[in-house]
């Protein structure tokens, strides 16, 4: 497996003492769509700043496209498109001129194709009609789209997107997801941070979860969700009987809520995991009437909450 981003013991302590990223070991495989998850203040943006060479790590190393950052910034960054902590635009320039400005800052960008590439990028994010409008008159979503356009001015090997769908309308989010899939299909690796877990679940192949500056886990999205066991759910007019029978059949953590009985499918080390088909047959044998029966697959959200805890407060 080749990796596009690799960090070893990456640590950042801001001036003022805040430990924002703590010994991070991250590996982003080439060709993946990598979701970077974590509660507010967990260090996602800080990590991205270090990957892009904007801030110096306190300790550890970060390699992007196989080269150490920030030392190789001038070789690496032309092949990387980035959206970091929201878009930033020149309010007194129109959308097109904003892109022209960013493009002329790139030493590898060919000035002869500049206008064409800018027009293409505007087209890609649906801003062609608004390209002549001053950026200060843009809505949040339009700014976000222009920021994305800036990341797409050139063919890229890696896209780093920090909360790319922030502020977008539902159509915009769908388009961005489609865009991410399209780019991934072309072979671009996409590294994207987001709070929207179903979004990550929909587009990402891999994910990592951060909390308080530490990496909790990383792997494929399927692995992460599988880490949390699915729950058995039975809807029945005889909940008490159902609960008794399920317990006898080895289901743990059985809870009853109205006509709904749910429980944990035992995946113990020695015994075979209970087969849902056997459980259903058992219920019917015991004369329990069953309206609905199924195993609820754990969502990424369950996995996320299981990892980072239920608490709402941001860590200090």
């Amino acid at each position, binding site marked *: 497996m080749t990796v596009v981003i690799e960090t070893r013991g990456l640590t950042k302590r801001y001036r003022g003492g805040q430990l924002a990223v703590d010994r991070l070991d991250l590996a982003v495989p080439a060709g993946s769509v990598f979701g970077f998850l974590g509660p507010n203040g967990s260090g996602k943006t800080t990590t991205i700043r270090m990957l892009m060479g904007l801030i110096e790590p306190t300790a550890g190393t970060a390699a992007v496209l*196989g080269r150490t950052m920030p030392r190789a910034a001038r070789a690496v960054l032309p092949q990387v498109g980035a959206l970091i902590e*929201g878009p930033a635009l020149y309010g007194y320039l129109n959308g097109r001129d904003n892109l022209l400005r960013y493009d002329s800052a*790139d030493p590898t960008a060919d000035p002869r194709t500049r206008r064409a590439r800018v027009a293409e990028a505007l087209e890609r994010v649906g801003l062609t009609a608004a390209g002549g409008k001053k950026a200060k008159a843009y809505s949040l979503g339009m700014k976000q789209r222009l920021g994305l356009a800036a990341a797409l001015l*050139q063919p890229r*090997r890696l896209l780093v997107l920090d909360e790319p769908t922030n502020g977008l309308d539902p159509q915009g989010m769908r388009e961005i997801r489609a865009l991410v899939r399209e780019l991934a299909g072309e072979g671009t690796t996409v590294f994207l941070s987001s709070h929207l877990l179903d979004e990550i679940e929909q587009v990402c192949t891999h994910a990592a979860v951060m909390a308080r500056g530490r990496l909790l886990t990383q792997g494929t999205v399927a692995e992460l969700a599988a880490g949390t066991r699915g729950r058995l759910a039975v809807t029945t007019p005889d909940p008490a009987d159902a609960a008794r029978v399920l317990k006898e059949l080895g289901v743990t953590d059985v809870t009853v809520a109205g006509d709904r009985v749910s429980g944990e499918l035992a995946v113990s080390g020695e015994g075979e995991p209970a087969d849902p088909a056997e459980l259903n047959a058992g219920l019917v044998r015991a004369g329990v009437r069953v309206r609905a029966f199924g195993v609820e697959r754990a969502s990424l959200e369950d996995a996320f909450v299981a990892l980072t805890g239920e608490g709402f407060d941001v860590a200090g």
Partner: protein
Amino acid sequence: MSRAEVLEPGGGGGDPADGRRGAGAGAGAGAGTRPVSPLWTFGLFRSELTTTFRRWRTLALLGVLAAVPVLIGIAIKIETSDGGSVGGGGPEGGGGPAFLTQITNNGLFLVFAALAATLPVFLPMAVGVIAGDAVAGEANGGTLRYLLVAPAGRTRLLLAKYAATLVFCLAATLAVAVSALIVGALLFPLGDVTTISGTTISFGDGLVRAVLIALVVAASLIGLAALGLFVSTLTNSGIAAMATTVGLVITVQILDTIPQLHGIHPYLFPHYWLSFADLLREPFYWDDVLRNLGLQGVYAAVFGSAAWARFTAKDISA
């Protein structure tokens, strides 16, 4: 060595010789190495220029500067319309109101008078605004991080910004000089020029000297531009950087007038500013003009290096 400035030989993108490459190669995006145009620094500089000069604020500053000679010209025209003469200091001394008495005889002197009037305050303030905002304003707006990941390169970005500021110094000086020349020609007679030494030179020669003086005045702002750029790298607030730079200009000017501090006067950047009047002598008296230019060079070197050291090592987290 500061970060972000290690140029790969040839400056190209992902060098295939790098041992750990292959990362993106598997992805096959085919976006491999793109050649770097040798002229790209010029492209960044041009972009810097257009963004500076298309800004409403820049144009307003130039407009205010161009209005100063208009005000001076009209005031003198009104005051002398009853046949009286302008009061104030003579042309010797090189003080603020220098050359005023000559304007009614020769409109060309409005150029010298307007430059002498704007150099102590208006010109440095305008330069302080542009230089102070150069880096801090972009940091404040967040655009700096996108320029740096483009990647503009910290040293090149700073150089482009300094060069654009110097162009503004020239543009600001020319705004004053050209406006003064036009107003002078419209309101007053033009003709042979009487130098400070008392000799007379032709109007054509006088015009050449006016151009020379405008260039020297623009060059007088080089040190301040570097100082402002350095201040600009210290903060993420454009307003704070502009205010600090303009405040420094005023403070230093005040220090320059305190006789007890005469020991440090020769090291203050505005100390020789008004020496440009020496170029109206016959023959030229270069000593103070050269001292001025030398001092500006020293300031540019010292504060330019400081700005570079600061900017290339700075965490850009805004």
